[in-house]
């Protein structure tokens, strides 16, 4: 386990993991939130999806099969629905859960995330749009998630700031010249 002496935020913590994977020469990365929401049992199926669908990133979505097992707060639901719609429109593919922390990826994606493109707070729809514009192939698979144990690691979200940040981030992502990697 990597212990950071200072709390850098969710995104920066993930990025530390990507850096580790890149330096160790790993080929694949799997990530899940440690607050009890994600079960590692989903990972093999997601890696299989990565391989069989020729994808670079596979995201575990809570909303892909609409059995309603996951019920976020109203404000969060609106945010997720809105930015899923925006991401889907821009990427011309169905995106349902851009905030999901349950993901698997190939190492070029992790290497890409080790640069300053990755936010230190919350990677979200903006990062999916960036991946799409950079030529990486993103897929979603349906997963089941449990409610987080104790305080969710995403509870620090202030919805107004979040809305502002996401719109701005998507706007500047679209304004930047894309660098194609995949």
């Amino acid at each position, binding site marked *: 386990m990597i212990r*950071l002496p200072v709390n850098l935020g969710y995104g*920066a913590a993930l990025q*530390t993991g990507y850096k580790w994977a890149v*330096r*160790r*020469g790993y*080929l694949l990365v799997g990530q899940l939130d440690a607050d009890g929401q994600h079960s590692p049992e989903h990972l093999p199926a997601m890696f299989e999806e990565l391989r069989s669908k020729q994808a670079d990133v596979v995201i575990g979505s809570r909303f892909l099969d609409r059995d309603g097992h996951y019920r976020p707060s109203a404000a969060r639901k609106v945010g997720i629905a809105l930015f899923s719609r925006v991401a889907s429109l821009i990427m011309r593919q169905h995106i349902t859960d851009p905030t999901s922390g349950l993901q698997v990826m190939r190492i070029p994606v992790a290497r890409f995330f080790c*640069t300053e493109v990755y936010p230190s707070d919350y990677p979200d729809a903006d990062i999916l749009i960036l991946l799409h514009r950079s030529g990486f192939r993103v897929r979603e698979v349906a997963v089941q998630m449990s409610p987080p144990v104790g305080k969710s690691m995403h509870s620090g979200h202030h919805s107004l700031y979040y809305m502002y940040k996401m719109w701005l981030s998507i706007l500047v992502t679209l304004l930047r010249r894309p660098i194609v990697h995949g």
Partner: protein
Amino acid sequence: MRIRLITILAAVAILILIIELVRRRKLKEEYSLLWVLTAALLVVLSIWYGLLVKVTHLIGGTVPSSTLFFFGLVFVVSLLLHFSVRISLLERRITALVQEIGLLTLESRSDGPDVADTQRGGPSDASTN
């Protein structure tokens, strides 16, 4: 005339203070630029009152003092913006440094090289940050 003397003295004092701070290495040269420019401009404007009046007419103002306030505000805002940019840069550097501490700590604790430990020492990822 007294007010003119006071403004000239104040502007010169600011200029000397900034140069002194740079000399004692309390202020880095790159940060001093905006301050020195402003202080120099203040000196010029307080000596050459006609220029201030001219600029006031040019921008359509009525009172020369409000022209001074306007440019003073522009200066303060641009300085604050400059600081915000600096803070963002510093934050990014701190993030990279803290990550490095975490990674190095784990690396020093793990015994024996990893199975896939082939690309170690290639700082290709770190250099971009």
